């Protein structure tokens, strides 16, 4: 079959360009409709959440039981692809040197952070852990939040007994009052927390753990 010669004319080229540009521009404009109030609220919430959970630190200490909040933190981190860190702070009293051996507390730190690592690995989230010894738990948490540029601190609560009217622990109040980032505090209800309880129950000590113990 014979092919005729190809002829490019200026009007033809201009029209071709106009067709492509007009079609593309029309579709781009269509795909960006004006936002409604509901859209704006949703967008702000999403952006806030993104900002909130860009880098998460879960705080543990003898005074702060965050086991049930770890499961929530892992779910948040997975959904938002956040950096997740678990920190255990051991408060060293002024009566002891800063590098004093505190076997019971260190053992508790290993348990708490080990469990945190297991929860994170089960859902495929990378977790970094750190044990810190400090004179003041609250100051140590605030410092590490600053160092890591944390956007949210997550921690459980400590109360004398399960009396709902009791104030939160002093350390938690100090962190909440002075943190430059958002603080998410999980307060157990009257009947305990369902958050992550099953996870921790399922975890239990493994045979390997028992051997180590």
């Amino acid at each position, binding site marked *: 079959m014979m092919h005729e010669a190809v002829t490019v004319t200026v009007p033809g080229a201009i029209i071709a360009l106009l067709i492509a540009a007009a079609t593309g521009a029309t579709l781009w404009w269509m795909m960006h409709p004006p936002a*409604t109030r509901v*859209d704006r609220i949703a967008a702000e919430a999403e952006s806030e959440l993104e900002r909130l959970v860009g880098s998460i630190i879960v705080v543990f200490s003898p005074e702060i039981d965050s086991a049930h909040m770890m499961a929530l933190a892992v779910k948040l981190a997975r959904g938002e692809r956040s950096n997740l860190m678990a920190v255990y702070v051991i408060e060293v009293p002024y009566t002891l040197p800063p590098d004093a051996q505190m076997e019971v507390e260190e053992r508790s730190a290993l348990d708490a952070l080990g469990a945190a690592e297991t929860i994170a690995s089960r859902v495929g989230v990378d977790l970094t852990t750190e044990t810190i010894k400090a004179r003041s738990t609250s100051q140590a948490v605030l410092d590490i939040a600053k160092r890591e540029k944390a956007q949210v601190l997550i921690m459980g609560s400590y109360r004398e007994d399960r009396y709902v009217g009791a104030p939160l622990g002093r350390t938690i109040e100090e962190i909440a009052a002075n943190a430059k980032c958002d603080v998410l505090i999980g307060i157990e209800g009257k009947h305990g927390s369902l958050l992550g309880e099953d996870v921790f129950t399922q975890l239990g000590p493994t045979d390997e753990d028992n051997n180590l113990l």
Partner: protein
Amino acid sequence: MPDEQRKPELRRSVTTWGSFAWGYSDVGADIFVGLGLVLGAAAGASNVAFLFAGIVYVCIGLAYTELAATYPVAGGGQYFVARGLGDFFGFIAGWAVLLDFTIDVTLFAWTCVDYVATLVPTFDATLHPWTHFFLTFGLIAGLALLNVIGVRESTAFQGVVSALDVVSETLILGFGFLFAFRPELLLHQMQTAWPTNYGLMDGISLAIVSFVGLESISQAAQETQRPASVIPRTSVALILTILIFALAYSNLALGMHPWHALPLDAHGHHQALWQYLGNNQNNGRAVALLAQQVPIFGALAALYVPILGAILLLISSNSGVFGSSRIAYAMSNGKLLPSIFQRVNAKFRTPMISILAFCGFAIIELIFAALPGLDPHAKAVYDHLFHGEDGVTFLGDLYAFGAATSYSFVFIALIALRLYDPLSPRKFKMPFNIKMTVRGERVDFPLVAVLGFIGIVSILVFTMITHIIGRIAGPSWLIIGIVLYLVYRRQKGLPVFRSRQHNWRKEQVEILRDAGELELMDEFVANVKASDARKAGVGA
């Protein structure tokens, strides 16, 4: 609230692109049919015919955009007309749309086979009319069966096909204009092949075929996310995209130098590209044949455009099947049609009676369209009675008639709703309005709607003048429908020419709330309160 009392709500799953694709798979397929028909009728003035119909189409599009964004319900045109002009006119508009949907099923199934015939000549309607007839019949029956048993193509598939087609058509036109467009050839064809007034009117009446289907977007309004914001965008984008394509194709067909030598016509004469695309043998697959003639890109286009076109046409045919059952359901819900059209089959959970009834009409239309090709005696009768219109043109006539009738009422309804329902917030409004006061309310009188009404009535008149079949079959369809409507309303003890009682204020609040347009709902409620306060103040 007990579960059995809880009203199920329709999930809003149609996204911005989904809404566009919904309309595009209907309107976008039209150019595959319309181009050849218009070239055959309007010859060197095909671009002018498309321009005239395109201007009217822009007005129609703007009207539908305003109405669908203001009243995001599933009924589409018939709902707007029933609300603006009353039940009787709502029925006529809906009945005309139903004619279009049944034609849609037949016409697009027919041209789907035509496009496949580009690659498989055994399916050619001229060479093998019985094969073509049975294939088209099989497609319609197959679509009816699939819809009865509840199988539908996925909306994602529809979206992908629409996206591919937009890209493909942009490439065909882009390469066509870049490598083969000769402005002097365009001018030459317009001067030497300018049609008679009759031919131009014929072309304009068929050109509107390329723009029918905006109804689809408004029908999907109830399922669209944020309809008041999204529908204006998707409708305007659809209007512009289709307009660009239609005008570009018609100018390219007149001004393009073909890449391959064209075959001689039946009398052994050389023919221009528009003549080749517009003759009875090729007018059902003009876009595929034009794409083949685009330099360089045509080699690839020759392989995939017939397939892509056939898929798009099949989707469009399918949209006619479920569109007709949806609109019949909506009309039945509004007491414009008997409740049988609302009946859902217990086994398949689909409106089986509705689907089979309208697919049955589609098959009757197919027989009428195919008869002259199948039987020489029938051809002689058609030649005598209908000036020898071919099958595709017959279907195109009725398509244009149904659309023009329905759109005419939509324009009047829009004007009526502007005057009598000024309190409903309009996130999109047709431009060029005259401010006036009606019954104590400030209203905007839409000049573009008047222009559009004049345009579409002209097209309706052109259709009646130039097409004997359109002149007979179209009004006959309406008369049969009106008789059925009158009998039904009388039997049910409903007002025949007047409307049933409606609490439009309450209904509008529910429509906007169900649409998730809470800001508009607040605005509407505030408008109503302010209006009532004003009137109470005046009364006091």
